[in-house]
């Protein structure tokens, strides 16, 4: 029987691991679908306190992990596929294996959203991408589109100008959710063009993407644009499907936690990071709530 099992290894899960390990709870950390979390695809992280120079998301998460390992956190690759409550404890399935634990810290984060059109799936990996840092280099001297209006979209667009001939940001409404500093960087980049408020209606091509049909969201006008790549950065959905029978979630699927705590609606189950954060979705916030989850789990175990 484990005392603490942490699911997920983004900033939330790994911060929980550091705190739980330092409290001598010997946490077992299950790495999840994306070891290191969403941040590993960030080319440069500029807003994590303590790092005055930009650091790559992959390097930053490697440091998080090292710190957790130093205090004795144990790591297992793979993902949890099912959770069951049993007499106040919990049973987790990981592949064919069952893990018994007294507490669970859910730090499974959020998964990138896909475009809700059939042609997106058809061309995924054939010009449609969800990872600019992974796939940008395939678009040297080509024309690409970035879909989205948040920080990720701006950062992706700026990163892609290293390779692409032109980058067009397509966003469905005038308002951009991205931080003003990111928007300004994108606006002042001569390779970046804007199509706002437009949406992609159809992606065209034979084997590979060759263009897209766009629709103006106000006038209804449609236009076909030639392009070789389409990078999708339209936000993330919390990964909570396997927990919904166990803990209360909001309409969007985010796990509900009690204010100023990591307690979910189930005793002994805690949540931290983007999986329970419909508002901020920042690495530093995730790290903070990861700490809260570990401290709450520790207090819960002591009281039992």
């Amino acid at each position: 029987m484990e005392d603490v099992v942490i699911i997920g290894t983004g900033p939330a899960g790994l911060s929980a691991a550091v705190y739980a390990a330092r409290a001598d709870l010997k946490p077992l950390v299950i790495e999840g679908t994306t070891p290191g979390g969403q941040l590993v695809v960030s080319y440069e992280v500029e807003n994590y306190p303590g790092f005055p120079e930009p650091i790559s998301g992959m390097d930053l998460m490697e440091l998080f992990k090292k710190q957790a390992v130093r205090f004795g956190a144990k790591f297992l690759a793979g993902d949890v596929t099912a959770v069951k409550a049993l007499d106040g404890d919990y049973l987790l399935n990981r592949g064919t294996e069952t893990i018994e634990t007294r507490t669970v810290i859910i730090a499974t984060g959020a998964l990138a959203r896909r475009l809700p059109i059939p042609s997106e799936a058809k061309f995924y990996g054939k010009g449609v991408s969800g990872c600019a840092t992974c796939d940008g280099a395939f678009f040297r001297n080509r024309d690409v589109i970035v879909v989205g209006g948040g920080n990720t979209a701006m950062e992706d667009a700026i990163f892609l100008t290293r390779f692409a001939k032109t980058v067009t940001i397509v966003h469905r409404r005038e308002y951009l959710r991205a931080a003003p500093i990111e928007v300004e960087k994108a606006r002042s980049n001569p390779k970046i063009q804007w199509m706002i408020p437009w949406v992609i209606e159809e992606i065209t091509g034979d084997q590979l993407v060759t263009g897209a049909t766009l629709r103006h969201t106000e006038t209804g006008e449609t236009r076909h644009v030639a392009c070789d790549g389409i990078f999708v950065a339209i936000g993330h959905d919390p990964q909570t499907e396997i927990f919904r029978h166990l803990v209360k979630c909001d309409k969007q699927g985010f796990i509900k936690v009690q204010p100023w705590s990591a307690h979910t609606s189930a005793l002994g189950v805690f949540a931290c990071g983007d999986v329970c954060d419909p508002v901020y979705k920042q690495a530093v916030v995730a790290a903070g709530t990861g700490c809260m989850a570990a401290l709450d789990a520790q207090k819960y175990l002591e009281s039992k």
Partner: protein
Amino acid sequence: MASVLELDDGNFSETIKTGVTLVDFWAPWCAPCMMQGPIVEGVAKKVGSKAKIAKVNVDEAQQAANELGIRAIPTVILFKDGKPVQQFVGVTQEKALMSAIDEAQ
């Protein structure tokens, strides 16, 4: 067969020409590729003589990657006698890769 062959533009076509070959296209800057690597190594340990298991750093085999129309990594392609028979984009688990190899026999 226990090890993963490392291919580049020089030996790519020759290697996939005969038999069943599973190729993992990756690059060091791609975080999800770092997850695919160990999965493919796991396949190599289990596959026996059913298939050759290889990886291609797309930086060192731009021609092969280009000809195959690879626009995202990790991409894993299963070849039979030189022809792609199945293609997986994004991190793909061992089970799916093993059953694709079995189907290609």
